[in-house]
């Protein structure tokens, strides 16, 4: 079986570009707080979702709708409507993280396929099987804290399909279990669908250096004209115990293209690309490259090498936790 390429789409244009570039599956969300990329100008209204899904289906691609924030107490109906509308629009599955929403969906929309979001941070076979038995979850997006060896062990002990991130942003912390962002800005991935939000970023020049601040905290200071990484909290430059540096993670992004054959051997069903906030041309290029890689693997040809380095915006690349030494 060819490994499935699961590609992000932040806009209807990106969805069409990804489908045309060869994505097997697209994931996207509604333009509200129900999804974990709740950025201004991004995501789909109901009409766009319906026509986007039709377009994908006409071209043989699937669409997964991410409803993966944690519903706010007293306002759960917003999330319940999102699930109902995803089903009405023809979604092939919904991607969920919240226990209550999983339960609601399993009971009220039994025919709607349920995937477990990375925001649920299900990191072992026993908990994955628990989600499958309790809520009928058919696929799990694995957290980015696992090595290839561990992923292989998980697949040996579950029938639930596994999907892993192979390209784009890299969470260093277990996803869905991090409130660094709300500690500094008041807004979090779990509650608001944003991390280190642009609304709380300030850049200022100071003595020939450029300071990047988040919620008032200095995250990076770089020489003027040097590339300034986005001030994400877990990739900031800090000091502790007399040492200064990127104590949690360097400003790197994930690229596991070289590990595709090992991931296939580990029993992974689908390869996920991060970046619903990315442009349609970026998305199309990443999809083309990954599609070429999985097609080559399927045909027994060698993988094209180093194909995506130019898309990393000058950032360093890492294979993250897939290599055990990352820890």
């Amino acid at each position, binding site marked *: 079986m060819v490994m499935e390429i699961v590609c992000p789409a932040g806009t209807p244009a990106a969805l069409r570009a990804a489908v045309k570039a060869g994505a097997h599956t697209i994931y996207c969300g509604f333009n509200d707080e129900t999804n974990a990329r709740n950025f201004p100008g991004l995501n789909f209204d109901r009409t766009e979702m319906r026509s986007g899904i039709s377009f994908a289906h006409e071209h043989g691609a699937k669409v997964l709708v991410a409803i993966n924030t*944690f*519903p*706010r*107490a*007293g306002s*759960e109906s917003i999330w319940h409507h999102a699930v109902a509308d995803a089903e009405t629009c023809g979604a092939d599955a919904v991607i969920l*993280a*919240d*226990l*209550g*929403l999983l*339960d*609601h969906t399993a009971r009220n929309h039994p025919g709607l396929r349920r995937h477990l979001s990375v925001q*649920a*941070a299900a*990191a*072992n076979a*026993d*908990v994955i*099987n*628990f989600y499958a038995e309790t809520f009928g979850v058919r696929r799990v997006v694995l957290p980015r*804290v696992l090595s290839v060896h*561990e992923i292989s*062990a998980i697949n040996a002990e579950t029938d639930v399909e596994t999907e892993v991130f192979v390209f784009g942003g890299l969470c*260093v*912390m*277990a996803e*869905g*279990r*991090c*409130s*660094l962002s*709300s*500690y*500094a*800005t*008041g807004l*979090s991935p*779990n*509650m608001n669908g944003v991390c280190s939000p642009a609304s709380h970023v300030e850049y200022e020049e100071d003595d020939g250096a450029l300071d990047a601040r988040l*919620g008032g*905290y*200095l*995250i990076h*200071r770089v020489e003027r004209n040097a590339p300034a990484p986005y001030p994400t909290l*877990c990739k900031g430059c*800090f*000091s*502790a*115990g007399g*040492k*200064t540096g990127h*104590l*949690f*993670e360097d400003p790197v992004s994930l690229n596991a293209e070289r590990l595709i054959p090992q991931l296939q051997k580990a029993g992974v069903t689908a390869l996920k690309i991060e970046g619903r906030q990315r442009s349609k041309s970026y998305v199309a290029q990443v999809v083309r490259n990954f599609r070429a890689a999985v097609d080559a693997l399927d045909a027994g040809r060698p993988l094209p090498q180093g194909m995506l380095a130019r898309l990393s915006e000058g950032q360093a690349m890492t294979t993250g*936790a897939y290599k*055990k*030494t*990352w*820890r």
Partner: protein
Amino acid sequence: MELTVGPNQFFWSAERWESFYSDLTQSTVDRVVIGELVCSKRLPFYQDRIPEAVSRLLDAGKEVTLTTLALVTLKRELKLTAELADMGVMVEINDLTALAYIPNGCAFSVGPLVNVYNESTVNWLASRGARRICLPPELPVESVKVLAQAAKDKGVAIEVWGHGRLPLAISGRCYHARLNGRSKDNCQFACEDDPDGLDVVTSDGVPIMAMNGVQTLSDSYACTDHQIDLLRDAGVSALRLSPQADGFLELCDLYRRRVDGVLAQGELGQAMRDKHPDIRLSDGFLTGRCGAEWSGTSDQPSKAP
């Protein structure tokens, strides 16, 4: 209002660990959650002392609950988690993995590291056997109110993070090891040197976080002095006090006097300030602002280096 002592988040020597729980038998707290939350590699150093600590706390009239790990990945961690369910003591789940081993309908507690954000989740957990839920520290008071009402309808007690460095994140990577140029598997227990976590400051000297092995905590110490009356009115039945290396019994006593009305709003924060002039306090998660913010008027230690 009751007081619960949360699981110790740090790596203490077995002697310090034992004397901490021995001291707690003399405290005014109602409940103690005990066991390893953060890193399974720490457990062998004090594991054999847990049964006796549990017995002594029970003899002293405390309720005792055993915590699971916050992030269960390795085979031996799965085994540990499964064994907890058979210990005959109430289990506090801090990773949903534990539900794979707790039979449907058996009573359990839910810790602050499980995502409980809404009524449906409270209802589902209650139907599964939850009797007590300590809500995630990130939640504002408005959400706490709604959830406490939902829990009350189901006979579930609601607890809120009352005091201590806030658990902000958990990772597969060990930051203490990374700081020392090592990997998690070869960490050499670097976290042992920091019994309250290691302060992390920005390049211009502002404290922001604290590292504790695979866990990241807040620089500030959450303090509910200004929120206790609101929380009580909301139906919260217990506050969770998170262990710290020094002055913890005294801290428990201050909270006891505050929840019993002996200390007025503001007096608890002031007492903290007097005893620990170097630490910063916060309650911004509860007030719905940035987590790091503080409602108190008493001066915080300077942010400047």
